[in-house]
């Protein structure tokens, strides 16, 4: 049975799930949810994802939402398939969890504020809040300085292998770099730049980009 991802492929959270499944070589279908028409806030959708957000997945009888919970599930379920995205020892896994939480709590809110104000609002004809962006960019710079120091010691955030901790950063950062004109946040930091070039060169990332560009609604390994 193919995994069904209910969502919108240009959106960051569904892309997190797509990346993980492609890395693991797991087939999936996208069931489009029309965010422009606020389909995610309709009763039908809310009965599946009560917070009114994308994505949620259906895998046979099993349903799950929250992209970071979904990627943890598939990384654990298919631990022996494709790259090990989680870590082999208790300690390796703990470092992956640590950086996953740094992304969720310290990194994502800043990136969200930037992308929302510089890309999402203008796209729908509204004006973003410049002061909010300025504050977020400054804080994100400080966060990326810390990342740069970490990445001067380890090739990836949690150690010497690519893991979920790196993966979860990719979708939103692609927007910051590609759609918000803020590539210097990455390029001005030697080790962050090297890390970013490496992880965005992965076939799974290129596949997600091409799926979004071509409006593809399914993936088979």
């Amino acid at each position: 049975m193919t995994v069904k991802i209910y969502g919108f492929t240009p959106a960051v959270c569904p892309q997190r799930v797509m990346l993980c499944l492609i890395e693991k070589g797991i087939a999936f279908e996208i069931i489009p949810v029309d965010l422009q028409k606020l389909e995610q806030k309709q009763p039908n959708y809310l009965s599946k994802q009560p917070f009114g957000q994308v994505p949620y997945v259906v895998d046979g009888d099993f349903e799950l939402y929250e992209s970071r919970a979904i990627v943890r599930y598939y990384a654990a379920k298919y631990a022996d398939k494709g790259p090990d995205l989680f870590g082999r020892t208790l300690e390796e896994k703990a470092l992956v969890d640590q950086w996953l939480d740094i992304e969720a709590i310290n990194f994502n809110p800043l990136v969200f504020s930037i992308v929302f104000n510089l890309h999402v609002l203008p796209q729908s004809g509204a004006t973003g809040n410049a002061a909010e962006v300025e504050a977020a960019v400054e804080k994100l710079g400080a966060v990326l300085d810390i990342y740069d120091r970490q990445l001067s010691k380890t090739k990836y955030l949690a150690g010497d292998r690519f893991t979920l901790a790196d993966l979860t950063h990719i979708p939103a950062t692609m927007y910051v770099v590609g759609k918000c004109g803020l590539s210097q946040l990455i390029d001005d930091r030697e080790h962050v730049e090297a890390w970013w070039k490496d992880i965005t060169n992965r076939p799974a990332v290129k596949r997600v980009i091409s799926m979004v560009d071509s409006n593809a609604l399914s993936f088979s390994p």
Partner: protein
Amino acid sequence: MAAVKVYGPTLSTAVCRVLACLLEKEVDFQLLPVDMSKGQHRSPDFLKLHPFGQVPVFQDESISLFESRAICRYILDKYPEKGNTLLLGRGGLIERASIDQWLEAEGQSFNPPSSALVFQLAFAPRMKLKQDEKAIRQNEDKLKKVLDVYERRLGETRFLAGDEFSFADLSHLPNCQCLVSGTDRGGLLTERENVGRWWAEISSRPSWKKVVEMQSAETSP
């Protein structure tokens, strides 16, 4: 001396999350205070332990970790047979995924508005900072919407991820406690029938009562 060390003050919700977990698991630990009012969390020595200058930091014989939820996951994975053995479910991936889903709901949907409210209503006055009325209103509205989702969920299941107390419920304890004891907005929880029932049940656990005692002891003259 216990091998496990937790650095941080008990007035930190994130520190209390880790203490609650250690107490549920009956794992001995030493709590080492960090005086944030004196900027100890920004000292060069502390920044070596936590590059973001936050609390808590956790150390045992194998690892040094930050991010309270990642620390809890490590404790739960390291001591599966000790204390409460059901915090991550009974071992199945699907049960664990449901717990992860509600943990993400806590981290992404509940934590931001509840932390902002707690900061504005409990901490800002103590720190002699001016309260931001707009932030209070906005975050209260966001939190109400989240708690409406919780109210429906807790009408279907006894706890968030199912019918047993799990790490997902535990993770909510610190901010809920702050709202109830440190602000006049406790009614957001207690005046909702199912959320109120859930709060009464989770906060009466001996492990949580012990954390609250530790908080009183630390803040008493």
